[in-house]
């Protein structure tokens, strides 16, 4: 009987302690997780005039808070991709000499369709849609991403 009473008290104190610990830790941990910042849902941005981009060149365009790489190929065609390397989050660039998309951080290489072709990147770059409207370049989020 004595033992049972002791066990019960231990259980009560132990359980209480655990509950106390959880009630202290929970707010602490949730405090450290940053709150979601409302981001304006952005579907397209104007990147500039067609003439501002010579063939065989690339430029990083701000798409809200994300960098997008706009490329004008040698043939004059426009393409846009997320500029965030799929390997470890660095920002990629267009290499005019090799005509590839290149990440300087770990020497990752993508072709002009955004496909990862050498180095460590595990996935292709996310493509964006490029439209030309009255000589103005408009970059749009691909529709299947909402």
């Amino acid at each position, binding site marked *: 009987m004595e033992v049972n009473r002791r066990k019960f008290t231990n259980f009560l104190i132990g359980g209480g302690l655990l509950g106390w610990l959880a009630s202290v830790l929970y707010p602490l941990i949730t405090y450290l997780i940053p709150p979601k910042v409302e981001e304006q849902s952005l579907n397209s941005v104007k990147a500039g005039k067609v003439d501002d981009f010579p063939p065989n060149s690339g430029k990083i365009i701000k798409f809200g808070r994300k960098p997008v790489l706009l490329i004008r190929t040698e043939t004059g065609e426009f393409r846009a991709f997320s500029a965030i390397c799929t390997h470890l*989050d660095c920002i990629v660039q267009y290499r005019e000499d090799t005509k590839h998309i290149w990440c300087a951080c770990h020497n990752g290489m993508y072709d002009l369709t955004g496909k990862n072709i050498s180095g*460590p990147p595990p996935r292709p770059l996310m493509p964006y849609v490029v439209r030309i409207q009255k000589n103005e370049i408009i970059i749009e989020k691909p529709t299947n991403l909402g």
Partner: protein
Amino acid sequence: MKRNIFKKVYDWLDERYDLTPLIEFGKHKKVPVHEHTIWYYMGGVTLFLFLIQAFTGILLSMYYQPGPDSSYESLRFLLTKVRFGWLIRSIHSWSANLMIFFAFVHMFSTFFTRAYKKPRELTWVSGFILLSLALAFGFSGYLLPWNELAFFATKVGTEIVGAVPIVGPIIMKVLRGGSDVTGATIYRFYAIHITLLPAIFMLVLALHLVFVQKHGMSEPEHLANLPESKKKYIPFFPNFLLRDLILWLIVFDILVFLAVYYPWELGLKADPFAPAPAGIRPEWYFMFMFQTLKLLPGHVLFIEGEVLGILLFMVGGLAWMLVPFWALKERPGRRIQPMEFIGVAVLVYIGVMTILGYVL
């Protein structure tokens, strides 16, 4: 007269806190003298450089203003307008590098002299934790100038944390203060660098030093087995301590030489919308990991190369921390012992990868 006052103060304290055993301990503490004695000084040098870090860090915090629009600017002000600002900052950066270098030397010398063996297992573990904390100091401090290199190093470094299965993504978010590296990340890294890490570091350091005092200096086996009359010792106080101080002075001179003749540069301000510059690389002590990640292909079998690399480093680090608990037995008669072979392999791996990182 003067002596009398000291004696009175001592007696007053001794009566209340019983200082005599401590003094006796200091008087009788002795250090073995043999061909490996030089390695006994490495921990002390690391400690000395840590003290310099703490001191110059306090000085820097008097001008540094964390924030995406003020971090870089306040450092530029420090470097160009504050008298000797460049010197203090340069010493802080150089001393950080030297501290990690000596911590590595200290660790490997402990490893090769097998000083981690019973009863010093926890001294080794606490030392490993201190080195990990020093690396965390380096990583968090690297972002604070908010320059180009710092920005990308932090992006990559936190993304590596994010690739750890299950808990990675949430830890990455907590570290970054959001999903990207932004001003919020500077505030968090600053808090970690100047409050959290020093607090934990001091605690583990205190434990480490208590352990070292408790067990005394480890003697190499062939010496430990000699009869007491054949061993050579010097008293810790003042002989060993004075030699320690001489070495600290030499290291301090080297530090000041480096800081003055090779001042640490500030670089270009971070731009979250600029591509990573060519030739980007982390600090030398992260280079072997960086180079490994660079050489791993996108996929190894069914697992992403980076995840595999990170998991291997985690397992390797854990195994290294627990060396005293699994160390392979020595084989009498062998010229190269199994643990020596492992130590050399680790050193060669780190060395080769580091060199490749700078050459490729």
